[in-house]
């Protein structure tokens, strides 16, 4: 894979650094050493990103809520993550007396491991994919399935009704939103004709005159991105879909009985999940590592990837500061009555877009765009209208535990 | 123009999209629904005319111009299923006719259905119907044709039962659906058989299609039961479908009942779409029908069957029409009769003649139905011709156009299209070498047609209006009609289509006169025979026959048009027995009631009886016997071997419990036996030497 890059390419040095380092070892060891190096780079890089994001989030939320945010540790409070880390590591690790000890211990690990695995298939730059699988997208979703199990393990093993309720909420929410999440990527897969993320990224790195071929710049891509992003918000349990751990309702959800280092791992897994799914959104819709204009290609591709990723993370934080939490039934009807139909309709629109590719009559381009936008927009308006009309303010019903 | 040739599917697609869009609308959006439906059919009409042009320009050089596109729909295993579109003269002229006539009917419905609360639904179904028919026309695959064929059936079911709150309408819809389904079963069997033998259902596929020489040779070469060739068997099976759809004997019984639907529906069903579909199907598979050279005197047995079926239908339906009193039923039977003519024409080899009659008939029959609709609308939903009358004065436009349609149907010489097309058919029938039977049947039918149409005209339009008197005589106003209003002329939205259709009913005849057989050349690519003394003679004969029919009708009815309702039909006075037979439609429905339906019912009753009497009695006997035994045993028990018997019983109970342990409802016990059996099977297979 090194042969494709020229020496002048900025990616050349990063990719060949690994080859140079592994060159010191026996040939039989090299694949393992390379895997180790890649894993170390990924975990290290994303752990740093985690630290940066937490401080950014707290500062950003502070700005949104008209307060300064953390500003005591270090200059402008920039060392706050380090302080947090020390605090987490030195706290006492409390395990409830009746808890299922083994499962309680395993749950954070099961939560973190699959998310970290998912990082392996993302193309971070030109020829910079740690594990270029043929079925990369499927791999991503397959390993993502583990986090539901982890939520269950955490909630069930704690022997605490808040934990269990939080786990049930989390599982129901994750299963439901996994459908629109996966279905909204189907359109991309259809258009690219491949499940390989590398291939999908490469297809978007071309330009027609100066317009990049990013998927978000098509009607179906726009709708798909919005669907995907909304579902991703819910999948990563972020506000406004943070019911599983809504502090004001069920304490801390399935994490209630966790403290210290285990809690830190959960926290990290949540942020890692956010990074992974945002990376996937960048790859699928935002053109992965390609520059927005042909003239800007001199900036290294991984930098572009980083910029887009940070942009999406900013949107995550922004939404958290802006939107209130949903009710459980609103959450479900939103998923099943709006997102899922939209994802299905979007597949049809994408198919129409594909087949209208070789229209040649005059104004075909405008006609294609109009039809595409209408195909996405009209059902959206209809569905949203139906959702609004049927969900009036009903009398509040209280149900008690039996 | 090039574009429409390559995108011929757009023509059925447009009404289909209109239907889909209307289906999503609310009931109140009447204007939008109507404009969508009209717009769809109008665009389809424009497309049809554009598509008609190249078929016109390309034909007539001893070969038929044909353009088709095929796509593989899906492939299971190694068997591809293809569908496709074809544009050839046959499809081209049908497209124009169907879209034009349907469009006019749509316009007419605007007025006719204006007060109906389900206006929107009506236009949805109508568009679906038109789309399905256009799909039949452009299909290049028997499969696609069958799909559209069934869609037509579905749409007709929905439309005939449009006023489903009327029990008779719901009943009629069901009858139409079931009766045509019987024929469709034959169609389906024929289709499957064809696919099994030729491996394709495409009509034209660059020499590979099932209507092209390669496949036909194979089909003819193979004989099946009774010495019939495969081609004959398959085309006869497909003909079953056409019998059902086109109302041929013996499956014609649904067609008169279908009059329960709104009148524009009747016009659409009987003029342009559904019944024409059967004839069109036979025209489409004509090469298959005609493939067998080894039949009697060089004629395929399938053709002979088609010809005789058509001829019998033509005469029989015309005879029944003579004694009907419902204005729409008379027209329904005349439709059956005319369809018989078309089938007969196809059967005797007059491919162009049959299609020509199909086209002209579409125009004048649509005209007649819409005229009847106008009459019904103007007379507050009165359909009995004995209660109409004198409408000539009240509804002049309707009268004039209706008269043109009637003369076209009756075949009044020289000026009207029906004359030319019917004459063409009779000419072909006369030239048929096998038998003159169909020719004479056809002549008799022509006579009766002229007669019953005269009768209807006189009843409806001459004399005085009889509707009011009826109200005064019978004071039961349960029907709730408005008795005091006189008939009124219909609005322009209804009369303008009538006028356009009337122009068509006159003018269309001149595209294929014996003096200038343009249509024949257009459709087949060969020159027609032209004028000969035989042709002229036949024209004179048929003119005379028609004149006789008209004259007899006038003599019987026209001289003293009935002034009062109670007057008996003059024909009934002359021949009461025969009239009653005809009035009861030759008892076809009753025969079916007594045979097929009764047989089914009887089977049900027999089963029921066996269940009730035999088994129940048997069970009762057994239980009595058991009771008797138990009584006896109780006696024995009490007086005799009390103790010993108890012990035996205990033993038996114990044994029973042991045995019942095998059936204890515990699923795992069952599974255990299953596993044992599985192991036994393994060992058997492993040591039984089976690999």
């Amino acid at each position: 894979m090194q042969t494709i890059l020229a020496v002048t390419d900025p990616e050349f040095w990063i990719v060949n650094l690994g080859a140079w380092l592994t060159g010191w070892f026996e040939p039989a060891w090299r694949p393992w050493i390379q895997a180790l190096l890649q894993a170390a780079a990924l975990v290290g890089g994303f752990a740093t990103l985690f630290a940066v994001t937490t401080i950014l989030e707290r500062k950003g939320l502070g700005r949104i809520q008209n307060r300064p945010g953390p500003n005591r540790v270090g200059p402008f409070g920039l060392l706050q993550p380090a302080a947090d880390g020390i605090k987490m590591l030195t706290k006492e690790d409390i395990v409830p007396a009746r808890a299922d000890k083994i499962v309680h211990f395993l749950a954070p690990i099961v939560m973190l491991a699959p998310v970290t695995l998912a990082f392996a298939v993302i193309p971070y730059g030109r020829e910079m994919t740690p594990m270029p699988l043929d079925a990369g997208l499927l791999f991503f979703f397959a390993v993502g399935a583990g986090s539901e199990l982890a939520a269950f393990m955490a909630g069930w093993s704690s022997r605490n009704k808040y934990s269990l309720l939080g786990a049930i909420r989390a599982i129901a929410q994750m299963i439901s939103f996994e459908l629109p999440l996966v279905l909204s990527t189907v359109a991309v897969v259809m258009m690219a004709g491949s499940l390989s993320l590398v291939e999908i990224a490469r297809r978007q790195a071309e330009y027609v005159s100066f317009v990049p071929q990013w998927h978000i710049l098509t009607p179906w891509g726009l709708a798909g991105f919005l669907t995907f992003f909304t579902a991703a918000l819910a999948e990563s349990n972020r506000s406004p879909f943070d019911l599983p751990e809504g502090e004001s309702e069920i304490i801390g959800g399935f994490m209630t009985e966790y403290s210290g280092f285990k809690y830190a791992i959960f926290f990290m897994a949540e942020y890692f999940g956010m990074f992974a799914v945002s990376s996937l959104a960048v790859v699928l819709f935002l053109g992965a590592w390609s520059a927005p204009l042909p003239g800007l290609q001199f900036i290294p591709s991984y930098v572009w990837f980083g910029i887009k990723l940070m942009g999406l993370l900013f949107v995550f934080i922004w939404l958290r500061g802006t939107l209130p939490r949903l009710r459980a039934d609103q959450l479900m009807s939103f998923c099943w009555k709006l997102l899922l139909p939209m994802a299905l309709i979007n597949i049809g629109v994408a198919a129409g877009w594909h087949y209208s590719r070789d229209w040649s009559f005059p104004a075909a381009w405008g006609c294609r765009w109009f039809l595409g936008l209408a195909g996405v927009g009209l059902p959206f308006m209809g569905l949203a209208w139906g959702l609004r009309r049927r969900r009036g303010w009903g009398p509040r019903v209280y149900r008690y535990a039996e | 123009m090039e574009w429409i040739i390559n995108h011929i599917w757009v023509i059925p697609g447009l009404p289909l999209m209109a239907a889909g869009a209307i289906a999503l609308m609310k009931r109140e959006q009447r204007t939008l629904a109507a404009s969508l439906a009209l717009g769809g059919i109008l665009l389809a009409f424009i497309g049809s005319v554009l598509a008609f042009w190249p078929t016109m320009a390309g034909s007539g050089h001893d070969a038929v111009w044909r353009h088709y596109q095929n796509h593989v729909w899906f492939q299971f295993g190694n068997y591809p299923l293809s569908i496709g579109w074809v544009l050839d003269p046959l499809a081209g002229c049908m497209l124009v006719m169907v879209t034009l006539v349907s469009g006019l009917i749509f316009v007419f419905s605007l007025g006719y259905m204006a007060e109906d609360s389900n206006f929107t639904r009506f236009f949805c179904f109508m568009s679906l119907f038109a789309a399905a028919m256009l799909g039949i026309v452009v299909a290049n695959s028997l499969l696609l044709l069958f799909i559209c064929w069934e869609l037509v059936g579905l749409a007709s079911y929905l439309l005939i039962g449009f006023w489903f709150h009327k029990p008779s309408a719901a009943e009629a819809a069901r009858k139409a659906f079931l009766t045509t389904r019987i024929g469709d079963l034959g169609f389906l069997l024929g289709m499957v058989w064809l696919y099994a033998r030729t491996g394709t259902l495409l009509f034209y596929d660059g020499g590979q299609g099932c209507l092209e020489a390669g496949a036909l040779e194979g089909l003819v070469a193979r004989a099946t039961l009774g010495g019939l060739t495969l081609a004959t068997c398959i085309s006869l099976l497909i003909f079953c479908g056409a019998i059902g759809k086109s109302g041929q004997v013996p499956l014609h019984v649904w067609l008169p009942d279908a009059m329960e639907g709104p009148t524009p529906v009747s016009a659409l069903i009987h003029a342009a779409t559904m019944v024409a579909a059967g004839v069109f199907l036979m025209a489409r598979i004509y090469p298959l029908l005609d493939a067998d050279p080894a039949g009697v005197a060089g004629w395929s047995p399938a053709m002979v069957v088609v010809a005789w079926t058509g001829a019998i239908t033509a005469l029989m339906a015309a005879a029944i029409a003579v004694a009907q009193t419902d204005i729409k039923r008379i027209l329904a039977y005349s439709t059956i009769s005319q369809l018989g003519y078309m089938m007969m024409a196809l059967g005797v080899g007059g491919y162009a003649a049959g299609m020509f009659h199909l086209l002209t008939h579409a125009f004048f029959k649509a005209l007649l139905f819409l005229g009847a609709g106008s009459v019904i609308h103007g007379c507050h939903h009165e359909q009995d011709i004995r209660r109409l009358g004198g409408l000539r004065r009240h509804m002049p436009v309707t009268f004039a156009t209706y008269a043109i349609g009637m003369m076209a149907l009756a075949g009044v010489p020289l000026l009207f299209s029906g004359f030319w097309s019917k004459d063409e058919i009779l000419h072909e029938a006369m030239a048929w070498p096998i038998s003159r039977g169909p020719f004479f049947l056809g002549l008799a039918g022509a006579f009766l047609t002229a007669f019953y149409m005269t009768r209807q005209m006189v009843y409806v339009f001459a004399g005085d209006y009889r509707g009011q008197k009826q109200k005064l005589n019978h004071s039961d106003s349960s029907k709730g009609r408005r008795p005091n209003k006189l008939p009124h002329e219909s609005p322009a939205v209804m009369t303008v289509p009538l006028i356009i259709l009337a122009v068509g009913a006159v003018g269309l005849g001149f595209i294929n006169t014996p003096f200038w057989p343009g249509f024949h050349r257009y459709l087949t690519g060969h020159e027609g025979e032209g004028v000969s003394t035989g042709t002229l003679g036949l024209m004179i004969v048929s003119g005379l026959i028609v004149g006789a029919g008209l004259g007899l009708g006038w003599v019987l009815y026209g001289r003293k048009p009935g002034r009062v309702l109670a007057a008996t039909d003059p024909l009934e006075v002359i021949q009461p027995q025969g009239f009653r037979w005809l009035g009861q439609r030759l008892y076809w429905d009753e025969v079916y009631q007594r045979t097929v339906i009764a047989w089914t019912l009887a089977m049900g009753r027999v089963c029921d009886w066996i269940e009730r009497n035999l088994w129940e009695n048997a069970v009762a006997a057994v239980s009595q016997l058991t009771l008797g035994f138990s009584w006896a045993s109780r006696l024995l028990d009490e007086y005799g071997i009390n103790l010993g018997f108890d012990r035996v019983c205990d033993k038996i109970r114990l044994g029973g419990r042991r045995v019942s342990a095998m059936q204890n409802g515990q699923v795992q016990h069952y599974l255990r036996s299953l596993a044992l059996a599985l192991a036994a099977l393994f060992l058997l297979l492993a040591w039984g030497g089976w690999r």
Partner: protein
Amino acid sequence: MQSDFFTLVCWGVMAAAAIAMMMRRPVHAVLVFVVSLVGLAVIYLQLRAEFVAFAQILISVGAVAILVVFTLLLTRNGGAEAELKRTAGSAIVGLAMAGLVMGCIGICVLASSAVETSGAVTPATVRQIGEALMTQYILPLEVLGLLLTAALMGAVILAMDPARRHNERKP
């Protein structure tokens, strides 16, 4: 093929499956069962069936295991073990039956001559699988879609409690 690794995974899968089936608590059983399913996916990976391996994890772990877990929560004896005191004889008979079947399979496999392998490998890329599904296996695929729809509706109707739904309306 890394034979040692492969053998190790095989033993791991079998051990995990056996332990899962012997676990007293169903929840633990499900968790260990998931381990054996993941091991099975690794075996598929070793056999170069990449797509199937990922699909296996996605469906078996992501859907089936979660469903089982959810049922455990709903039936509320996830903690309290419902294994009643049982006659040892019954369990022994069951185990013997299973062992019999297992033995028969083993004998058949070892005795069969149909296990000759051929060296050629046909790699299954995603594109090839997709094309096979859309052409040759289109009919089974459609039927399967129908089956899944029916199963979905059946599951919803079965799991719906009519009485409770009725009561909810009242207060």
